[in-house]
C-alpha cells in the first residue's frame, strides 16, 4: 500500500498572498498613479489655459469682432483684416507647398532607391523641419524680399511659409503612402504597369485621405506662424474696408492673425484687456479646430479602408 503523498508546500499558500506580492502590488499602484498624474499634468494645463483665455476674452468676442476693422489705433474694433490676411497667406503657402510636398513624398517612397544620395535627401527633410522659424524669416528676407525683389509682400511671406511647412506635407503624405501594402504595387508591376500607372491607379486613390490630413495640418501650422511673416510681408496695420473679402493684392503687405496678437500684446499701450485675449482665442480656436478636423479625418479613413 503506497504511503499518502504529502506535497512539500502547504497547498493553501501555493498561489495565495505573499508578503512580496503585496509589496509589488503596492509599488505597482503607486507607480501607475505617478505616471497617470504626469499625463494628467499635461491635459490639465491645456484645459485650464483654454478656459482662462475664453473667460478673459468673452467681453470682446462677437461676430462684430470678427468682421470689424481695428479702430482707435487698435484699441477697439475687430480683426477682420488680420483674418483675411491669414487666409491669403495660408492659401498662398498651400498652393506652393502642397504640390511640391506631395510629389516629393511620392518620389521618396515610390521612386528613390536606397542609396547614400537618398539618405541625404531624407536627412534634408528632417533638417528642414528643424530650422528655427526666425532663420526661415531671415531666409525669406534674403531670398524673396531682396534677391528675388518681391519686396515686403504677401508673395514673399507665402513663399517663406511654404518652405517652412513643406516637411509637414512630406511627412504625412509619406505615412499615407506607406500605409498602402507593398503587395498591391507588386501585383501592378507584374502586369506591366509603369511606376506612375501603379501610383495613379492604386496607390494615390488609397492615400488621398492621409494626404488630406497632412494638408489640414499644414494649414493649421501656417496660420499660427509669426516670425517668418513678421519680416517678409506681415504688417502692423493696413487700412481695409470692413467685411471686404479681397482687400489685398499679392504685392501688398497684409495683416495676419498671429502677427496681430503679437502687436496687440507687446506694441500697443493701453489696450483693453479683452482684445488681445479675444484675438488669441480666435487664433487658437481656428488652429485647434483644424487639428481636430484632421484627427477626425484620420479616424474616418480608418473605417473606410478598402482592404
Amino acid at each position, binding site marked *: 500500500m503506497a504511503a499518502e503523498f504529502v506535497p512539500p508546500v502547504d497547498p493553501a499558500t501555493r498561489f495565495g498572498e505573499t508578503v512580496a506580492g503585496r509589496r509589488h502590488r503596492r509599488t505597482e499602484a503607486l507607480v501607475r498613479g505617478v505616471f497617470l498624474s504626469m499625463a494628467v499634468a499635461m491635459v490639465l494645463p491645456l484645459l485650464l489655459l483654454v478656459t482662462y483665455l475664453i473667460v478673459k476674452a468673452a467681453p470682446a468676442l462677437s461676430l462684430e469682432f470678427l468682421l470689424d476693422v481695428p479702430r482707435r489705433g487698435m484699441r477697439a474694433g475687430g480683426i477682420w483684416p488680420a483674418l483675411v490676411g491669414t487666409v491669403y497667406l495660408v492659401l498662398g503657402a498651400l498652393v506652393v507647398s502642397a504640390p511640391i510636398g506631395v510629389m516629393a513624398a511620392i518620389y521618396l517612397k515610390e521612386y528613390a*532607391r536606397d542609396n547614400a544620395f537618398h539618405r541625404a535627401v531624407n536627412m534634408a527633410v528632417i533638417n528642414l523641419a528643424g530650422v528655427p522659424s526666425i532663420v526661415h524669416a531671415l531666409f525669406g528676407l534674403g531670398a524673396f524680399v531682396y534677391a528675388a525683389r518681391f519686396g515686403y509682400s504677401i508673395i514673399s511671406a507665402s513663399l517663406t511659409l511654404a518652405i517652412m511647412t513643406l516637411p509637414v506635407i512630406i511627412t504625412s503624405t509619406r505615412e499615407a503612402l506607406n500605409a498602402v501594402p507593398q503587395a498591391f504595387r507588386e*501585383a*501592378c508591376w*507584374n*502586369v506591366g504597369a*509603369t511606376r506612375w500607372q501603379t501610383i495613379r*491607379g492604386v496607390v494615390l486613390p488609397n492615400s488621398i485621405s492621409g494626404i488630406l490630413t497632412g494638408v489640414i495640418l499644414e494649414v493649421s501650422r501656417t496660420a499660427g506662424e509669426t516670425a517668418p511673416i513678421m519680416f517678409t510681408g506681415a504688417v502692423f496695420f493696413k487700412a481695409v474696408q470692413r467685411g471686404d473679402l479681397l482687400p489685398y493684392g499679392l504685392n501688398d503687405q497684409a495683416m495676419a492673425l498671429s502677427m496681430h496678437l503679437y502687436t496687440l500684446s507687446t506694441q500697443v499701450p493701453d489696450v483693453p484687456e479683452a482684445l488681445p485675449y479675444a484675438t488669441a482665442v480666435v487664433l487658437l480656436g481656428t488652429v485647434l479646430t483644424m487639428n481636430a478636423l484632421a484627427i477626425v479625418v484620420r479616424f474616418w479613413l480608418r473605417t473606410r479602408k*478598402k482592404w
Partner: protein
Amino acid sequence: MADVRTVVARDLRLAYGAREILHGVSFEIARNEIFGVIGPAQSGKTSLLRCLNRTIDFVSGATMSGTLQFEGEDVRKVRDVFALRRRIGTVAPLPVGLPLSIYDNVAFAPRCAGVHRTSDLDPIVEKCLRQAALWDEVKDRLASLGTALSGGQQQRLTIARALSHQPEVLCLDEFSIAIDPVTTMRIEDVLRELRSEITIVLVTNLVQQARRLADRTMFLWNGEIIELDATEAIFSEQPKDRRTYEYVHGIFG
C-alpha cells in the same frame, strides 16, 4: 518535331549584394509545355521568375549575369520592359485583389497598355474571368470590390488579371499556398485548358502538383539545377540524381 524554345537560360547567375542565389543555371522551356519547377524553400525559384519578368529590378542590390532569353531576346536588353512584363504573366503566392472593382481589376492591365474604350474592355474582362473559372460567380457584381472576395476567388482574380494582357507565358509561383484544395483543383483544370494557347511555368512546393500537371520538371535546390527531365523520369524510381528521389519522396525538404 522541333520544339520551339520560348525561354532559354545559359549560366544564369543572380546575387543579392554579396550573396549569390542562383549559381549558373541553364535550361530551356519549350512553347506550350507546362514546365514544373520544384525544390525546397529558399532555392531561388521565385528569384528565377523575378529575373524572367524583370521585376528583379525593384530589388535593390540585385545583380544578374549570364543569359536569359525570352523568344530570342535577352530580357535585360529589351526596349520596353513593360511590354515584356505584359508578354509574361505572373501569379504571386498570396492572392492579391487590388482595391478596385472586379471589373477594374481585370481591366487594369489593358488600360495600362492603352486600351480605354469600354467596348474593347468588356469582352476582355469577360473572357479572362471565364478562363479563370470565376465568371459565373462574379458576373452579377463586377462593380464590387476585388478585395472583398474570398482567398480562392482572389487567386482566380489574379489569374484573370494575369491573362488580361495576353501573355505568351504564364508563370505561377506557388499559387495554391493560401487557397483551399477545391479551388486548387479548379485552377489546375484551368491550367490544363490554357496549355493549348500559352506556355506555363509552374513553380510549386507541392511535388504532387508538378506530377499532375507538368510535362517536364526541374528540381532546383540552393540555386542549382539538380535534375531537369520529363516528369515521369523525375518521379520514377530511378531518377538520374539520388537527391531528386529523396526530395520527391519526402525524405528531405
